[in-house]
C-alpha cells in the first residue's frame, strides 16, 4: 500500500472495490471488466486499487499495469469532473480547431491530456466526433458545441466554471 491513511480510512476507501469484486470470479479474463467498473466508481485507477485487483486475480501488479497502459480508455491519474474533447479532425482543423484548443489551454492553464489542479476539467483531443458539418466542434461531457470560435468557447466554458 502506498497511502498513509488509517486502517479505518483505507477500509472505507476499499469498500466500493470489494463490492465490485463480489460480482466477479477470480479468473484472469475478468480483469478488463473489473477495471472498467472500478474506473467508473473511482474516476480513475489508483495504484493501491490496482494492487488489490492484481492480488484478487492472482496476477502480478506489472501484468495489470501492462493491460491498463495498453488501452487508452484506462487512466492512472485522477480525471476532471468535466471532460473536454476538442476535435482535431480534418474539417475542424481547416475551420480553426487549433485556435479553439489553444484558447482552452490558455484559459484553463493546462495542456492537452492534462487535468486542472482543482480537478474540474480534463482536456483531450480526439480525431473526429462525426459532426463535421458543425466544425469546429468540441464536446464537454456528453454535450456537443458546434461552430466554435476562440471567443465563443469562453462562453461555453463559463457555463461549467463554478
Amino acid at each position, binding site marked *: *500500500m502506498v497511502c498513509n491513511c488509517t486502517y479505518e480510512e483505507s477500509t472505507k476507501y476499499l469498500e466500493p472495490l470489494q463490492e465490485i469484486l463480489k460480482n466477479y470470479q477470480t479468473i484472469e479474463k475478468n480483469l478488463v471488466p473489473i477495471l472498467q467498473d472500478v474506473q467508473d466508481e473511482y474516476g480513475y485507477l489508483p*495504484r493501491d486499487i*490496482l*494492487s488489490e485487483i*492484481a*492480488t484478487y486475480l492472482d*496476477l*502480478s*501488479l*506489472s*501484468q*495489470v*499495469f*501492462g493491460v491498463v*497502459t*495498453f488501452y487508452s480508455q484506462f487512466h*492512472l491519474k485522477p480525471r476532471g469532473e468535466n471532460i473536454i474533447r476538442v476535435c482535431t479532425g480534418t474539417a475542424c482543423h481547416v475551420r480553426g480547431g487549433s485556435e479553439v484548443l489553444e484558447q482552452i489551454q490558455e484559459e484553463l492553464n493546462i495542456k492537452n491530456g492534462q487535468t486542472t489542479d482543482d480537478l474540474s476539467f480534463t482536456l483531450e483531443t480526439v480525431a473526429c466526433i462525426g459532426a463535421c458539418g458543425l466544425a469546429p466542434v468540441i464536446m464537454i461531457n456528453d454535450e456537443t458545441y458546434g461552430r466554435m470560435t476562440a471567443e465563443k468557447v469562453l462562453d461555453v466554458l463559463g457555463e461549467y466554471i463554478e
Partner: protein
Amino acid sequence: MDKINLTIDNKDIKVPPGTTLLKAAEKAGIDVPSLCYHPDLTIHGACRVCVIENLKDNSLLASCVTPVQNGMELSTRSMKARKARRRNVKLLLANHPNDCLGCDRNGSCELQDITHNLGICREDIEEIQGEVRKVPRDQVGPALKRDPNKCILCGRCVRVCEEVQGVSALQFSNRGFDSIVTTAFDLPQSEINCANCGQCATVCPVGAITEVSEIKNVWEALEDDNLHVVCQTAPSIQATIGEEFGYKAGTVVTGKLIAALDKLGFDRVFSTEFTADLTIMEEGAEFLQRITKNENLPHITSCCPGWVKYAEHNYPELLNHLSSAKSPQQMFSALSKTYYAEKEGLDPEKIYTVSIMPCTAKKFEKEREEINASQSKDTDAVLTTRELARMIKEVGIKFEMLEDKEYDILMGKHTGAGTIFGTTGGVAEAAVRTVKEKLTGEPLNRLDLGFKGINKAEVVINDKIIRVAIVNGLKNAEKILKEVKKGQSNYDFVEIMACPHGCVGGGGQPLPVDEKTKELRGNSLSHTDRQSVVRRSHKNPMIEKLYSEYLKEPNGSKSHQLLHTSYKKRAKN
C-alpha cells in the same frame, strides 16, 4: 508418425511433424539468425529476424514459429530473405542507442553479433533515421539495472519471468512506439515482487538488463593498503568461469580460479563451500530437531536468496518452514569478521569481504538489514562470475597459463558435499548425507536427483521414511508450496532453488547459456563431488576445528548469533 519431406536451400530434409523451420534449417546445417527466439522459452515470433523465403509463393516466413509442411521449398539465402533480414535488423538499430563501446554487453551482445554477421555497417544504420526512444534508466539496484532504450522488445525477459519463475515482475506496457518492457508503474526492481534472480539478464540478447556492477568498489578495496581483502568463491564458479576464457562448458578450473584471485591481489582466497559444509551442520541440526518434534515440516532450505524473497512476497504464512540458517555466503561473511579476524588478530573493521557469486540476488541479500552479525556490514561486495572475468581480463591475466593453486586452509577446506551446493539437488543430498550418518552411522548412497523441475526421493533412516523433494525454477516451487499450504504435502525436506538447474544456471553466470550448458556445468560439480576424498560435511576437519575452538555446537548460542537469521512478510503486489 510419418516424417515430413521438404527442401531447404536445395537440400532434401526429413523431419518429424511439428518441427519448426528454424530447427529444420539447423538440421540442414544452416544457422538462421534469430533474436526473440530462445531455446528454453515459448515461441514469440516478434522480431522477424529469422525470416526465410517460401520459394513456391515467394512469401517470407518467420522460421521460429512456422511448422514444416510436406513439399515445402525454402530458401534461407535468397536475395529476398537476406534483404528482409537485413532490413528488420536495421529497423531495430534505428531505435537503438548503438553505443556499444559503453555497454555492459559489448562482446556478448546478440544484436551486435547479428549486425556483424549480416554485414550491416554504419551507412546502413544511418540510412534509416527516425525518432529514438528516451526513457529513464533504472539504476537503483542493488541487484539489477535496466536500460529500456536498449530493449528490442523481444520479450524473452517477460517470458522467463512468467513461464519459468511465475513472478511476472516485467511486462510489456504502453502501446505502439511507446511500448516498453517495464515493471508496474516503472518501479525499480528492488521495490517490487522481483526475486532479483537475474534470469531476465541471462536471456536478454542485448544490454537492456544487467547486474549492478561492483567492480569499481572491489578495485578500490584491493588498492587500499589499510584493508585486508578476503574473498570467497561460490561452489559453482569453478565449473562456469572457464567459459569466459574459451574453455568448454563444464570445465572445472578451480586451481586457476584461485590463482587468478591471488594475482588480482586478494589477501586470502577462501571457498563458500566451507560454509556450505557449515550450513549443512546448522541446517542439519535444525532439521533433526524438527523431525524429532514433528514441527514446521516440511523443512525448506533457505540458501537461495531469490527463493527467500519470493517466499516473503508470496508465501509469508510458510516462512516458519524455512530454515533459519543463513546462506553460505552470509555465514562466510559473518565468520570472516569474527572467527577469522580473531584467529588472525585482525581488526574486523579493516576486513573487506568480497564474494564471487553466480547470482544477482546475492547482491540484494548482502543489503538485508537483519543479516549482519558483525558490527559492520558482513559482505562488502558481491561480484558475479561475469564481473570477476572482466576484472581478470582487465589486468591481462592469461587465465590458461595460470598455475593451479589451492584455497587458503582455514576457511577454504571443504568437502564434496559443499561442492554440490552449486547445482540443483546438492543441498538436499548434502544434508541427508550428514543427517543419515549422524542417526544411523551408515553412509548414504547417492540420491542422484534429476536436474529439471521437481524431483523426489525417499530415504529410510532408522525405520522412518524421510521424503525429500528438490525444486528449481520458482514456477515449479509454486506447485509444491500450494500443496504445503493446503496441508497436502507429506515431504519432510524440500530444497528450493530459484534458477533452473540451481546456481550453475544463476543470473550472474557466463553468457550465452541454455539448458544444455547448465546441465554440463552441473554434471561437472557432481563429478567433482564423487572424486572428493571427504564427501560429508561433518567430516571436514576445518569445520570440526571451527566448532571445537569457536562455535562449540551446531545450533548453539554462538551459532544463533552469527549464523542464523529471520525473514519478513512483504506485500504480494
